């Protein structure tokens, strides 16, 4: 049963990050993608026991480094200096990706250009002729993590939906996304349907009007 919060507007970026954090099980091993997914880290309490993995060879990644903490040898996947937490470990790149590809990561949170109702993910290449493609670890995460959550707005800058019947951008992974988190709604993708979990400032009926061609339940 969807919960509609119509007495307020859409979530702020921080509220959205907190909402994603709420769905991450205690003790989970989690990889947060570059950009908005990184904000989720600010809402994970130490008591949760959630351990952050960064693709460049670390478990137990901490917050962004400040001042004297900045160490060029200690960065996250976005090359931003971070700190280590007690119990952290370092390892080489093949081991780091074995953790993804071997199914040892419980959750990864990624951004996306498009997500299709069948869970297909497009987040690495617009396909534009002059675009320089860069894939990084996205395909390995999409394929290897046990659960793939996407944080993205429901509409692109041109107003067109990003949750679509079928991706038109080149794919990152096939049928991998199980949940989409946006400012207006959190939805699960199940059996070719969009299952609305919770909305903010938008009704389920309004989502139906926006997400043309999708089955919304």
């Amino acid at each position, binding site marked *: 049963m969807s919960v509609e919060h119509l007495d307020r507007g859409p979530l702020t970026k921080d509220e959205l990050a907190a909402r994603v954090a709420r769905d991450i099980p205690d003790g989970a091993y989690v990889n947060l993608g570059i950009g908005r997914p990184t904000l989720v880290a600010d809402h994970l309490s130490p008591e949760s026991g959630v351990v952050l993995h960064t693709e460049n060879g670390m478990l137990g990644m901490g917050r962004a480094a400040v001042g004297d903490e900045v160490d060029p040898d200690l960065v996250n996947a976005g*090359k931003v200096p971070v700190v280590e937490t007690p119990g952290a470990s370092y390892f080489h790149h093949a081991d780091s990706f074995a953790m993804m590809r071997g199914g040892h990561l419980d959750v990864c949170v990624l951004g996306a250009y498009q997500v299709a109702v069948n869970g297909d993910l497009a987040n690495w290449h617009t396909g534009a002729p002059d675009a320089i493609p860069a894939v990084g670890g996205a395909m390995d995460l999409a394929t290897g993590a046990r659960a793939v959550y996407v944080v993205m707005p429901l509409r692109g800058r041109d107003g067109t939906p990003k949750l679509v019947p079928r991706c038109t951008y080149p794919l990152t992974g096939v049928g991998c996304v199980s949940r989409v988190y946006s400012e207006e709604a959190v939805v699960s993708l199940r059996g070719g349907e969009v299952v609305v979990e919770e909305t903010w400032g938008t009704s389920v009926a309004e989502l139906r009007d926006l997400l043309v061609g999708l089955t919304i339940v």
Partner: protein
Amino acid sequence: MSRTQFPVDADAAVADVADGSTVLVGGFGAAGQPVELIDALLRQGAKDLTVVSNNAGNGDLGLAALLGAGRVRKIVCSFPRQSDSWVFDELYRAGRIELELVPQGNLAERLRAAGAGIGAFYCPTAVGTPLAEGKETRVIDGREHLLEFPIHGDVALVKAHVADGVGNLVYRKTARNFGPVMAAAARTTIVQVSEVVATGGLDPENVVTPAIYVDRVVKIEGGAA
């Protein structure tokens, strides 16, 4: 007596790199990038190189400078496009450098396979994407996999933290990244370190790259920790 050599400086360490070599270059962005070895390779003049590295250079230094000097024919990497990759971007748009884009996990594992004598491996990463085009596929346990081949280097340029007198290595934090797999994947592995300790000065339990993978070690004075 160890087989690992300790050349006097970075220039001596890279003196015999041949034109047309495949050079594995460690680092994830600037972390672990062997900048002084790359600078020496730039002075040495080898050209028509194939470079294998996670990124395609940052700013104007190190790998970016090697690209900018026109020494690199092809780059094999996972993430060329960054906010500070303008040297690569310009070469790529001008059609002056070839790009083989490889998912980061495949890049690491293909290097690992090369070092471990694995002929090829199957992996589901990139199935259903444009990066699967032209690859052999096989369904294993009901899931489609792609056949991926090893990446061998003629030379690896790696930055580690400390070497001992026989060439065992330890790294520092996330600067380890591709170092260990590249060290094993190249015929000649050249390592820069910020410190060399006496043989016996590293705890054998903690050695990350054993000396068997290390051909040359050069200490960089005043190099970043």
